[in-house]
């Protein structure tokens, strides 16, 4: 074997390297590889260095900064000022640097002093920087660190406690949905990573999910019971319920909000009350159409139009009427209330009529009217104040009038005894003044009653006063009539006497009634009403009117069609949510499978209408900086690969095409195909891949490309290593098949050289290469040329 290898080696050296030109080719390829890989390396490393330093400039060097505070761009100046204040107060000596702005967020890098890098600081970092205006989030950047994500809330404490026992861990803390572990030093980073992986691998979470309708009443308690039951099993060892109280779960809030929104929209949408035509019965889900904004009414047999208003029946009543909801168009656009059936976008026969109640419009109208009314309140209050004054004046003259009437009755009584003797005196009795007083009083009372009726709108307490005044007014009217009769008593003295007697009796009775009117009370009421009106005048009615208008404008301006779609979307969202309260999580050892725990759980729950699956306790999140560096390494490899590819193509084209052309010429000049056409074709195809120049090209291409890739660390995405020599061979093959076009040789000169007895090497060195493409081969050849 050894002898064979030695023999083979000598044969190869003799045959291949005996020719000095072959040695030149080897030197050429070596130099090509060296230059190409160096160039690829330089370019790739320069790019890598540039990007690395750019990243360091953006996010600082390793371990330089501890926090990344994101602030909305439009508030970055205010944010910066506040951050500086916080740093000054809480972290004196901290470093601050503004980072890049991306997607509307400006990042600020904060480097904490050593003494502030404590667990408490990190756990309260959100509240420390909570006052920063425009704050969008804070990320921990302290290095070295490990972030464990996807840790269930309930398991975080246990995980943190376990991690803290790992040698090399400074501390661990809750960081949003993750657990972040700060490591003592970079040297311990790998060890800590490995230990955390091991730790996470030891445990898993058994999730117990309940379908709708089978949810436990108290999932927290049930979880504990399940954990106890599992622990009681001898083989289990460790089990802990880590379920969380769903009351604090954001999803519940979201679902609740969606439900309320849906309820609001449904209350706000147009209500359609449909009265069927004779013989028509509606079912839930039926679609009917109305003329909308189109100029023509729907025609039976015609196609639906986008201008039609479509209504879907949502409820069919027992009396064949129905309720519906607008699903296309808007209730306000309905031109007439004739309803037509719809079957598969074809309009059917008329099926009834409908009334559209538009709460939106009604609300808008009500708000507008209320606003208008509110604007009138100041004027009404002012008028009411005036009327109160008038009523007060009327009350003031009321007492005087009663007294005057009493006096008059007294006079009448004394006049009665002397009526016969003083009949003539009767004619001197002047009741006009009294009548005038009564008229004024009655009028004043009328005015007072009117005023009080208006005041009753805002102060119902005055109703009793109004009733009293009305009765009083009636009495005054009666009295006026009586006095009128006195004027006629002279003609009939005797009747007058009895009349006078009657008058006196009635008058006394009437006065007694009039006296019962609580003038002070009425005055008091008027005073109180006056002060109420004064308070009313203090109301900021412009503000109220403006707010009513604002409310009217703020009410959602959605068409019925849009509301219907929104309601459907909300339904989909709500239906798709499983409320967390339906899930119990048990933290246990990884060796406890669902098969083992299943029967225990079913026993504790009392049924098996549940789903069990396992999930990891946490996943170590890759270090972002390491990830970026890894990406940069890949970029570097790709750059190196690309440069190598380009260099290989260049070298093949400039240096090796001349050689390939000569090889090709040697092959073709003396050997011409004698075959038939199809055989010639086959031969041509075969030669494309197996001709000596093609083999040369493929070999050289594969060799130098592979060597450059290895030396420069090049790589092409998705291309395995075996693909590199293949790619080089393909390039070499392509170049070889086009070598004559790329690097034509002067056949005459070559022939002349051969005729002079020049060897192949000499022909190449003196004739072919000097006349070929400028390149490395030509440069290296110069030292061998005898005629430079």
């Amino acid at each position: 074997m050894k002898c064979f290898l030695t023999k083979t080696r000598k044969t190869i050296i003799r045959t291949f390297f005996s020719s000095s030109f072959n040695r030149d080719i080897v030197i050429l390829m070596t130099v090509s590889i060296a230059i190409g890989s160096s160039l690829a390396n330089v370019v790739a490393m320069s790019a890598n260095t540039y990007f690395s330093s750019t990243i360091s400039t953006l996010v600082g060097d390793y371990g330089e900064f501890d926090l990344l505070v994101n602030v909305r761009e439009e508030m970055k100046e205010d944010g910066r000022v506040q951050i500086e204040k916080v740093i000054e107060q809480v972290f004196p000596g901290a470093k601050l640097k503004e980072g890049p702005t991306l997607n509307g967020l400006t990042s600020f890098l904060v480097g904490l002093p050593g003494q502030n890098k404590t667990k408490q600081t990190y756990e309260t970092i959100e509240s420390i920087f909570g006052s920063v205006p425009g704050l969008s989030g804070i990320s921990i950047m302290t290095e070295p660190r490990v972030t464990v994500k996807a840790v269930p809330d309930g398991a975080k404490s246990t995980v943190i406690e376990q991690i803290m026992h790992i040698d090399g861990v400074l501390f661990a803390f809750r960081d949003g949905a993750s657990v972040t572990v700060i490591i003592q030093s970079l040297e311990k980073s790998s060890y800590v990573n490995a230990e955390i992986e091991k730790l996470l691998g030891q445990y898993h979470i058994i999730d117990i999910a309940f379908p709708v309708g089978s949810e436990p009443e108290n999932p927290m308690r049930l979880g504990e019971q399940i954990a106890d039951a599992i622990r009681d099993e001898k083989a289990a060892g460790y089990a802990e319920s880590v379920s969380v109280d769903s009351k604090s779960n954001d999803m519940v809030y979201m679902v609740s909000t969606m439900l309320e929104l849906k309820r609001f929209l449904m209350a706000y949408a147009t209500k359609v009350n449909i009265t069927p035509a004779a013989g028509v019965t509606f079912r839930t889900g039926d679609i009917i159409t109305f003329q909308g904004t189109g100029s023509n009414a729907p025609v039976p047999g015609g196609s639906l139009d986008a201008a039609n208003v479509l209504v879907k029946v949502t409820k069919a009543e027992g009396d064949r009427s129905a309720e519906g909801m607008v699903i296309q168009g808007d209730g306000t656009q309905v031109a007439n209330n004739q309803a037509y059936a719809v079957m598969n976008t074809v309009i059917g026969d008329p099926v009834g009529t409908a009334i559209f109640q538009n709460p939106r419009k009604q609300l808008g109208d009500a708000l507008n009217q209320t606003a208008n009314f509110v604007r009138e309140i100041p004027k009404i209050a002012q008028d009411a104040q005036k009327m109160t004054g008038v009523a007060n004046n009327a009350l003031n003259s009321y007492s005087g009038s009663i007294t005057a009437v009493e006096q008059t009755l007294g006079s009448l009584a004394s006049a009665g005894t002397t009526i016969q003797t003083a009949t003539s005196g009767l004619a001197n009795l002047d009741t006009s003044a009294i009548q005038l007083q009564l008229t004024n009083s009655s009028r004043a009372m009328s005015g007072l009653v009117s005023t009080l009726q208006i005041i009753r709108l805002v102060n119902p307490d005055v109703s009793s006063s109004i009733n009293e005044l009305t009765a009083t007014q009636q009495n005054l009217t009666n009295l006026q009539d009586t006095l009128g009769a006195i004027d006629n008593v002279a003609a009939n003295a005797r009747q007058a006497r009895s009349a006078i007697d009657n008058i006196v009796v009635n008058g006394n009775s009437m006065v007694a009634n009039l006296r019962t009117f609580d003038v002070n009370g009425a005055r008091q009421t008027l005073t109180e009403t006056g002060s109420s009106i004064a308070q009313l005048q203090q109301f900021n009615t412009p503000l109220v009117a403006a707010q009513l208008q604002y409310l009217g404008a703020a009410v959602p301006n959605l068409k019925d069609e849009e509301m219907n779609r929104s309601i459907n979307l909300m339904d989909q969202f709500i239906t798709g949510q499983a409320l967390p309260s339906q899930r119990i999580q048990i933290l246990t050892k990884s060796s406890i499978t669902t098969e083992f725990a299943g029967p225990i759980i079913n026993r504790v729950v009392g049924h098996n209408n549940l789903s069990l699956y396992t999930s990891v306790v946490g996943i170590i999140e890759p270090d972002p900086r390491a990830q970026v560096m890894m990406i940069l390494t890949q970029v570097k490899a790709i750059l190196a690969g690309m440069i190598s590819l380009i260099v290989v193509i260049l070298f093949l084209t400039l240096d090796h095409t001349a050689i390939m052309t000569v090889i090709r010429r040697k092959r073709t000049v003396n050997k011409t195909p004698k075959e038939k056409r199809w055989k010639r074709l086959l031969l041509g195809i075969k030669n494309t891949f197996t001709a000596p120049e093609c083999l040369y090209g493929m070999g050289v291409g594969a060799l130098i490309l592979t060597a450059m890739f290895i030396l420069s660390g090049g790589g092409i995405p998705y291309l395995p290593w075996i693909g590199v020599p293949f790619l080089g061979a393909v390039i070499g093959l392509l170049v070889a098949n086009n070598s004559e076009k790329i690097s034509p040789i002067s056949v005459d000169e070559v022939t002349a050289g051969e005729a002079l007895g020049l060897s192949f090497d000499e022909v190449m060195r003196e004739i072919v290469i000097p006349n070929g493409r400028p390149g490395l081969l030509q440069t290296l050849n110069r030292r061998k040329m005898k005629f430079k």
Partner: protein
Amino acid sequence: MLVIQNLYKQFGSLVAVNGFNLSVRTGETVVLMGPSGCGKSTTIRTINRLVEPDCGSIMLNGSNILTMEPDELREVRKRIGFVFQHFNLIGRLSTLENVMLGLVMSGMKRETAESKATESLTKVGLENHLHHKPDQLSGGQQQRVGIARALAYEPELMLWDEPTASLDPILVREVLVVMEDLARYRASTMIVVTHELPFALRVADRIVLMDQGNIVEEGKPSQVFINPVSDIGRKYKELIEYQMNTSAQSLSGKA
């Protein structure tokens, strides 16, 4: 000196040389003539294996050129001078360097080579153009460089492949003068492919007429052109007569 036997060469379906047999004595000048495409250039190029024949033998002083190893063949080629139709000079080299090329490559010292090259160029009358590049020379001068290059080795055998075909009549004369000189006064063994009838008549020891790869007639010029037995020979005879009559009429002023 040179014995060619059963030489055969086919290009695709075209038989260029079909059983060619020829013997050339030392000092003899053999002129190959025939219509274009009859295989003259192919025949002459196979002699030093610039074209590889399919079969046959070419014995040069008892050695079969067709069976030689590459090294041996190169040595033989140095003993055979070849002059090409299109000169085939190396464009980047000067006149002197073109002639020196073969000498230096064969191991000769540069100074010696330069001396021989200069001598060779002087023989062809180009002593004043030693450092000119080929594109600075006329066609005739270039061909003379080609001749000087071929002669620099002092070859035993000179092969001429239509050396005047690319030249105008005046330049043709330049070259033919050199060729005649070589043929007459230096007793070189030459095989010349040419259409130059006057040259052939004056210089050739033997005319070989070819047609479609075969020798159709062979013999002294007086024999071939005066009493031809082949069609080609007859055509040449007619051509000679025509040229002579035309020349006479032109000289006598009659059209």
